[in-house]
């Protein structure tokens, strides 16, 4: 590893360490360092995304410009035209011209989403809940839990008048179904929270690991 490479890595490591400490400063309170690091993260990400998009666009336009056949020029020309019309959305008086492009994008997206949702999400998951011809005890319990959880959650969100709380006491079955549904919802939210917490702790561990690695390298450099 060359001296130049070490220098670049150290600079990157120092910047990363400083930004990490700035983010950690939020533990004390909302402060300028935290805001600076946050703006740097958001701005850097946005700038990178803009650069990547422009790179893709220019590359695509270059390919279209090099098309010699009429078909190729049309294939590349129509998206260009739609893209130019979309620019009119920034001018209020001319914004209706951009509706053509918006309609095309939204229509195609809706069609794709509909087909994909049916074939990729709804039907497979419904079929997955169907029991096999010779179901095991585990499968039966799993199916029963899913059905009970679904119905109980629906009872929680069923629209009923507020003053039905008075009558609810006279209907213990509905009362218990609602409580059961709240329990299922709490478990589902807890699982989602556990996943998010695991991700956050993983990132924290990774950051501390990086800081530890940085300082483990920095200290020998400083102390010799």
């Amino acid at each position, binding site marked *: 590893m060359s001296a130049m490479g070490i220098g670049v890595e150290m600079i990157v490591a120092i910047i990363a360490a400083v930004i990490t400490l700035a983010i950690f400063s939020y533990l004390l309170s909302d402060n300028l360092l935290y805001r600076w690091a946050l703006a740097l993260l958001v701005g850097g990400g946005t700038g990178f995304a803009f650069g990547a998009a422009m790179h893709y666009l220019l590359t695509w336009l270059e390919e279209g410009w090099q098309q010699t056949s009429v078909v190729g020029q049309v294939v590349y020309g129509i998206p260009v035209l739609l893209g130019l019309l979309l620019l009119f959305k920034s001018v209020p008086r001319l914004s209706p011209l951009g509706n053509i492009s918006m309609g095309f*994008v939204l229509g195609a997206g809706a069609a794709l989403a509909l087909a994909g949702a049916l074939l990729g999400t709804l039907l497979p998951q419904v079929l997955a809940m169907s029991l096999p011809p010779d179901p095991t005890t585990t499968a039966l319990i799993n199916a029963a839990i899913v059905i009970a959880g679904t119905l109980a959650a629906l009872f929680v969100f069923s629209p009923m008048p507020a003053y039905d709380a008075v009558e609810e006491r006279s209907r213990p079955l509905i009362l218990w179904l609602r409580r059961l549904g709240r329990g299922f919802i709490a478990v589902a939210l807890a699982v989602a929270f556990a996943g998010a917490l695991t991700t956050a*702790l993983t990132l924290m561990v990774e950051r501390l690991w990086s800081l530890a690695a940085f300082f483990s390298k920095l200290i020998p450099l400083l102390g010799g």
Partner: protein
Amino acid sequence: MIRCPKCGTVNPDGSRFCSNCGFKLPQTRIRCPVCGAYNPVSNIYCEKCHARLNPEAESAEETGVEDLISLPTRTNGDVPDWLRGLLAEEELSPEAIEEEPPVAPAEGLPDWLADLAPEEPAAEEEEAPAAPAGEGVPDWLADLAPEEPAAEEEAPAAPAGEGVPDWLADLAPEEPAAEEEEEAPAAPAGEGVPDWLADLAPEEPAAEEEEAPAAPVGEGVPDWLADLAPEEPAAEEEAPAAPAEEGVPDWLADLAPEEPAAEEEAPAAAPLEAAAPEEPAVELGVEEEEEEEDEEDLITPLPSTRAPDEEIPDWLKNLGERTEDATATTEALSQGAVPEWLRRIKPPGTGPLPPLEDVLGEVAEAEGGPARAEIPDWVRKLRPSEEQAASTPPPFAPSAMVDTGPLQGLSGIIPPAPALDAPPSYAPETPPEIPQTLREAAQLWQTILERPRGRRRPVARRRRQRSPWGDALIRLATSLLLIGVILAAIFDLVPGDLVGEARPAPQIGIAPSVEMIGNLQPDDLVIVAFEYGAAQKEEMDELSSALFAHLMERQVQIVAVSTSAQGAGIAESTLEQARRRYPDFADKVSNFGYLPGDATSTARFLATPQVQEAKLLIVFAADADHLRWWVEQNSTTAHPLPLIAAINGATAPLVRPYLESNKVQGWASGLIGAAGYWQARGLPLDEGLARRLTALRVAQWATAALILIGSAYYLFAGRKEAE
């Protein structure tokens, strides 16, 4: 429906007055004068009886003689005796009439009839300023006149158009109006006279007015008509004291033309009985107000006091049969002119009174009074039931005989008290229908009101004021605890007995993932999608390192792609590391780059033939949407690719159903999944990965402990503070 212009109340069709404020409503229907049915305004004929609704629109040809009968044509024989007696008080006695000298033809007729007078001999025509026969006269009347030419040149051209209604004036011949105005200045309209009567006032020259002596007015005319008459006498010097005025309303006499002296030789004025049938009907248009019709009814029964022989002009006598027919028609119509309800009402003492309800109903029907339909439904529901009505004595039962008071000795008196008393019971026949929403609202209010008052009302909890430093200290202490635990695990300061061996928890789907990648042959095409950003890079890098190491060992061709701009950059960074780590296979790794368009670009990319030849699709995703796009669009292709989902810990619970439904065949989640993948391959964990895995486990335990401590504090201490 008719909306009241004053108060806005909606009234039923055909209402005359507002049921709320009594304001006179504009008519939106035409009431048939024959059958009383209401018709739309645009109708010309009645929908029920096909009678003509708008006589103004009729032409003279269409109108029969019977339809044009004037109202003042009733003979005494057509009027009931008791009514005749009443009318006789306002008429001249026949003897007075007989003593009167002969009347000039025009004196007993309105000028529009006088204009119809037969064409006199030529010698007289020169002196007679009679209006031409055609002026102001319907054509059918003009046709009845003798065919002698009228001396129009010398005639002063009575202003027929000014003395007759417009519809009559329209029938007049087209003569220059200027001449009429010059020769016949308009007389001032009498005060208190309706406009339509004032318009009928004669326009006589001023000179004639000076010469004409004051004619007796009102001798044979009711006072109310006499008052309405103009003050100018119509007679001239040669015809003093026109007797005809005694039998004719002076307002009609005033309409007579200014006849010269030669008119004394003119035939006697036609009797009203004979002339009236040919008189254009003074019927008001059905669109006019009902009050005008009532006035018309009052005028109708006025009998004529003329002897027929005295008043029938020769030219009318010559008509012969025509006059008889007209007379017969007059009689027939005069009977109809008296309303049936009026005919049935007898003077007191002449006979038994008809039931009051019948009389009122007929009155209401005849006058268009308040109909039953105008009673609101809610009032109708409050009407007593039939049983209650049967048990209640009739409020208008006349008493047999009054014993005391000023009416003592009289019978048939309606006692006022029962009519003023309230009904004994207001219980409606059927209770008013109450909407369900109102019932529920009432029940709710009843429930709230009946709730015991001793119960505690929920009140907003007022949080105890805490110092900002307190919260910061708690947050800092919690963070320092986690950081210390993690650093202790990283630097291997935690006892191994406490945390145990760094072994990842088993995950469903890792083994299939290892198997699918292990089954790949060299140069097989594998599509790898990078769908995460810089914020999730460190977590996802562990997964990508584990899978890429396996892929590079299988010597497959890798094509990286991303639907996010940041993902494309991260893909390039990951591929660069793979090239550096496996330089021998660097040429088998390529980056397709950024695919703008989200699901659309995903579908387009998967549909390309080169991609369809791929053996495996691996998606590194840090959010559920990006993975869903790839799963769904891969399912829509003709040959769906086997798919491995490498996701972070936060996304795993959200996309787990895809693994259950076998839309995702392989699975690896987060740092634990990366460690599990290494372990599933039978390889030892990297020391750094093992420490981080231990740190993550310690951090999870510490977090769970903090959550338990916080919950316990809330349950025991914090809740008491809040209360």
